[in-house]
């Protein structure tokens, strides 16, 4: 298994000049890809056996004004998870869909669009709200969204009419 990991590293290095790899845990490889190369890398990875897209998610690095898209791929035959990461501008979050490579990504892209506001060009349904309905506030998973404040304003908190010390329910 270690071999396939090293092979993969070498191939990625040879084809796409990716040099920096991290291994967060065993059988897992994380690396950054330039945004414009991402689709090529993903297509290549799919062709060499990483047939499953386990997850597409996004991280909001608010301090450096970046969204980091993370594509997590899995190869069921050698058990290696890949974390393919790419960064896009937080203020103009646009990326291309990979629906033609991994059709299963459709709803993940809707998900990311809904919670981070990233637009995936080419995914027709991605503008629709999936989980939230009639949502008008900011994208909730952005770091500058405060859910507690939102909840308190909109749904309120209970003020109990009680004085302590007091027993409840005692007869």
């Amino acid at each position, binding site marked *: 298994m270690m071999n396939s990991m090293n092979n993969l590293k070498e191939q990625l290095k040879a084809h796409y000049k990716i040099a920096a790899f991290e291994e*967060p*845990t065993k*059988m*897992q490889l*994380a690396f950054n890809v330039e945004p414009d190369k991402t689709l090529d890398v993903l297509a290549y990875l799919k062709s060499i056996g990483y*047939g*499953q*897209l*386990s*997850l597409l*998610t996004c*991280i*909001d690095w608010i301090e450096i004004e970046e969204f980091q898209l*993370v594509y*997590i791929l*899995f190869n*069921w*035959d050698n*058990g290696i*998870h890949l*974390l393919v990461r790419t960064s896009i501008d937080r203020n103009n979050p646009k990326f291309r869909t990979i629906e033609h490579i*991994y*059709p*299963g990504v*459709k*709803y*993940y892209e809707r998900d990311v669009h809904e*919670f981070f506001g990233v637009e995936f060009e080419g995914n027709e349904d991605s503008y629709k*709200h*999936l*989980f*939230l*309905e009639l949502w008008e506030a900011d994208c*909730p*998973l952005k770091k500058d*969204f405060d*859910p*507690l404040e939102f909840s308190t304003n909109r749904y309120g908190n209970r003020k109990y009419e009680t004085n302590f010390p007091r027993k409840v329910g005692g007869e």
Partner: protein
Amino acid sequence: MEVNKLKEVKLFLGPQHPGMHGNYSVHMYVDGDIIKKARPMPGMLHRGFEKLMERKLWMSNMAIIPRICVIEPDINEMVYAMGVEALAGVEVPEKATWIRMMILEMARVATHLFALGGIGGPTGLYTSMYWAVAERDLILDLFEKLTGARVYHIFIVPGGVRKDLPEGFKTQLGTYLESLEKKLPEYQELLLKHPIIHTRSKDNILLPAEVVHELGVTGIGMRSATGKAYDLRKVKPYAFYDQVEFEVPTATYSDALTRIHLKFQEIQQSIRILKQIIEKMPDEGPVKAPIGTGNALKLRVPAGMVYTAVESTRGEYGYFIVSNGKEKPYRIAVRGASYPQGLLGIERYLPGHRIDDAPLWMDTMGVCSPEIDR
């Protein structure tokens, strides 16, 4: 597909619908009984977990994560703990790992029993549902003895488990397993051999192998179609799954009946694993390794990001955890195991089936709405 407005009726299957397990909805157009168009409608259980988890301490999160999937909460605890341990570089003590496996397998039995009984819901065989849920309740009693709660156990924590086994627990579990083994053939006879179940589910709701890859379906759906033992417990063993003997039931033709059969066989395999766990678990030894220094309020996990996954009853269940070295996680993303079959699967592969098949799709593929919604 152009919808003929005169002939076709718009229907909301759920969320308030007895065929729906959980608060989930499918909007569809039907022509008579045939579904012409279907669209999943999740979000009724959306609580914003990924946001809430960013706001709580690493340890406080233990209380909230099991609630992502109500039916099988323990995988959440496990996968979260695995992620935190990977980031913090903590080795889990041996006994703790065995206890974790015990919990996971007990949960698997419980969940499969629930799902197996659940087949009785959409097909109308309520008797099996009544039996299976009562059977599952006995596992919940065992869980209560072990962890102190029936449903949300909050027992697997980063570093190990919260407490050692209670006295005599192994014996109690062993007794239960034996009685369950005696009961299982009854389900086989009532449910699996039932000719009407065969009529309803054989050659119905097919899932071809190429569709599996297209959707990203994992778990029983994948194994029943590909015929390969694509189970994370085998492919990428976590805990001590490489130290116990078990088989992963597979099939090459994935209709609803096959998937029900696989569920049933997985229960048997889990019982086998549980018996080995009882045998192999050491009596003594620590059950929790210290993680970091200081109290739980100030637990900090080193910066980094990691994806951990375990095999749930519905497939690959993963957490993507990002830490920036503070007391709270920076980002946690959840891969619900039923995401592919519950969303894209319904949209693409439900049309063409009858209304009656929709609940059966949910049950045999394993669609857990809270983990989709999060």
